[in-house]
Structures are given as structure tokens and as C-alpha cells.
């Protein structure tokens, strides 16, 4: 743990390299989840008629909330599995901000620690601010 918190350890590792890896893994993992969910979705429902996308009716609870998606995945619902991949994809750039915050903390750059936290707060407000109306 001490090693993880020491500045020199992370300088050697280069936070930027780490960010590159995080982005790559984020995209790869979400694609794999989407592909897996999508394949089973096609196997189960591929022969059915296409839903009517010309009229907007929105999606049900199962696809629009974190708990709904997780519950669906726990019940092995294929479409919720695709939505889990969607969640992971959306989380990828947000996680990148968190990584940058970590880098600024190591550099003891107070101004940018503040700016990064502000950006994270705006995103969290967007998530939990009840803007879905």
C-alpha cells in the first residue's frame, strides 16, 4: 500500500500510460459485454419482428436504471446484458476523469484538483439531479 501511494512509483509507471490502458480496456470490455448480450438476444429473439422504432415510447425500468439493469442481468435477460455494456461504455470517459484527478493529486496541483472535482460534480449532478423528466 505504501508503495502504491509513493509518488515515484507512479511517476515510473506514468499515469498517462495507465489512462491509455484504462480507455482501451473500457472500450474492449464494454464491446465484449455488448457482443455477448447481443448474440444471445439474437439467438432468443432474432426471428421476431422488429419493434416499432418510428414511434418514440421510451424504455422500461429494466433498461434505464442501474438497479433495473443489474436485476435484469442477474436474471440473465439478454437486453439488460446489452445495457450493462452500454453502462460500462458510458463509465469509461468518466473513469478517465477520476484517473486524471489521481494524477493531479500526485502532482499536488491544487488548482486542477479543484477543476477536476468540479467537472466530476457536474457529471454526478447530471446523473442524480433528476433531469430525466
Amino acid at each position: 500500500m505504501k508503495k502504491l501511494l509513493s509518488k515515484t512509483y507512479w511517476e515510473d509507471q506514468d499515469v498517462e500510460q495507465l489512462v491509455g490502458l484504462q480507455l482501451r480496456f473500457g472500450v474492449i470490455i464494454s464491446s465484449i459485454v455488448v457482443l455477448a448480450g447481443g448474440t444471445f438476444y439474437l439467438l432468443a429473439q432474432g426471428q421476431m419482428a422488429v419493434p416499432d422504432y418510428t414511434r418514440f415510447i421510451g424504455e422500461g425500468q429494466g433498461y434505464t436504471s442501474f438497479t433495473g439493469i443489474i436485476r435484469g442481468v442477474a436474471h440473465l435477460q439478454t437486453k439488460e446484458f446489452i445495457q450493462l455494456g452500454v453502462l460500462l461504455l458510458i463509465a469509461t470517459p468518466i473513469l478517465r476523469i477520476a484517473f486524471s484527478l489521481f494524477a493531479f493529486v500526485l502532482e499536488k496541483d491544487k488548482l486542477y484538483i479543484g477543476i477536476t472535482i468540479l467537472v466530476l460534480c457536474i457529471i454526478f449532478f447530471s446523473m442524480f439531479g433528476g433531469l430525466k423528466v
Partner: protein
Amino acid sequence: MSILTFTIILLIGAYLAGLLGSLTGLGGGVVIIPLLTLVFHADIRYAIGAALLASIATSSGAATAYVKEGITNIRLGMFLEIATTMGAVIGAVIAVYTPTNTIAILFGSILIFSAAMTLRKKNQEASNEGSKLAAVLKLNNSYPTKDGEVNYKIKHVGAGFSIMTLAGVLSGLLGIGSGALKVLAMDSTMRIPFKVSTTTSNFMIGVTAAASAVVYLQRGYMDPGLAFPVILGVLGGAFTGSKLLTKINPTALRIIFCVAIIFVALEMIYNGYNHKF
């Protein structure tokens, strides 16, 4: 049409959209909206949800390559992200009160502007004069070239910040990365060298799109049946595009595609005007 056939056709379409977005430099998201609305006649709200996912996927995928080169100005990106994420939240709120036809017309106009932007002359010069605010915010930086590190300084931080807010609003309203506006703010206003502005704008696109994507997901704009072929298709197309770009000179191709995009944009405006959305 069965779901299987629909998914396969959309997968191919999204692949071509990703390829086109990558070759023209417009990004994967913008081509998805006309593809879904004009070809598949889907409601523009579903198209916006899918396009946001396409923007996040392509920007994160492309960023992997840029991060290593050390061209992206993370501080500049982070500072301007205050503007774009705030704008994106505002845009997502306004979207509820905006008629879909208006959104279509606005989208067409932005598409024409974006296509024109990719064809214009780019700022290659690194500026040596910077403003006071840029120094205070530590925005001045350097980037590696063949002839060593090039230092650059940044001007008009306030104006750039304002254009970024607008870019964020449009991105939240239309579900696109609005990379063209971001590059305009950095390139023409803040006088940042082209290489830095493109990579930094790419870094910002993913974050801006994520800020409004969390709202749209909760609003039910993101359909799993569309997300599946769109995400995978666009990623594949963008990957092929980035490989192709190292082999071919894209100038002629870019002009042809941009002209094609302008026609698509005109059709979006025309349909929006005639209340077909």
C-alpha cells in the same frame, strides 16, 4: 423484417458510418443520426441515444492512440470540460422542450458547418504570445514533433470557454460530439496548433457525451436493440478508418464525403422543415 435481418443491416450501416466518420474526421456519432432517421425511419430520439454511444466509443477508442504520443493537453481539456459538461447538461434539459423537427433542422445546419470545417485550412503555427489567464491556469504547453518539442501559448481563453459552452449545449441537445465547434474554439480562437486541438477535442468529446448520456439513458433514449449493432459497427468502422488513414492520402476522399454529407444534411433540414420527424 425480423430482428436478425434488421440487426445485420444496421451493423453494416453503422460500420460504414464509423468508417466515414473516421475518414472525414467528423466522428462516428454524426453519421449515425441520418442513418437511423433517414434510412431506418427511427424516431430521432432513439437516434440521438445511439449517436451518443457511438461518440463515446470512437473518442475513447481513438484516444488510446493519442495518449501515448503526449500531444493531448490534459489541463486545457479539463479546464474547458467545465464549459462543455455544463453545456451538455443544459442541452439535455432544453431537449425536452424542443420539438423534434427543430432538432432535425439544427442538426442539419451543424452537419453542414462541420463538413465545411473539416475542409478548411488548419492552424499549424504555434503561437508565442499568450494571455495572462492562460498562464495563471497553466494552459501553455509543448508538444513533440520530428524536430523536437514545440512550445505554444494560448490566447483568448474567455472566448474559447464561451464557444465550448455552446459546443456542449449542442452536444447535449443533438447527441453529437460537436468536435467541429470544439476545434473551432481551440484552433481559430485560442490559436492552438492543429495537432493539439484535434487530440484535445477528442479527449473532451467522450466526457461531454458521457455527461448527457447519463441523462438520456434514464430518459429511455437508449434502446439495447439499436445500441448493440451501433456500438460494434461504429467501433469496427472507426478502427478500419484509422488503419486506412495511414496508408492512403485522404484529401480527395474527404472532399467527396463532405459533399455527400452536405446533401444528407440538406435532406435532414428539408424533412424537418416539412415536419417529417
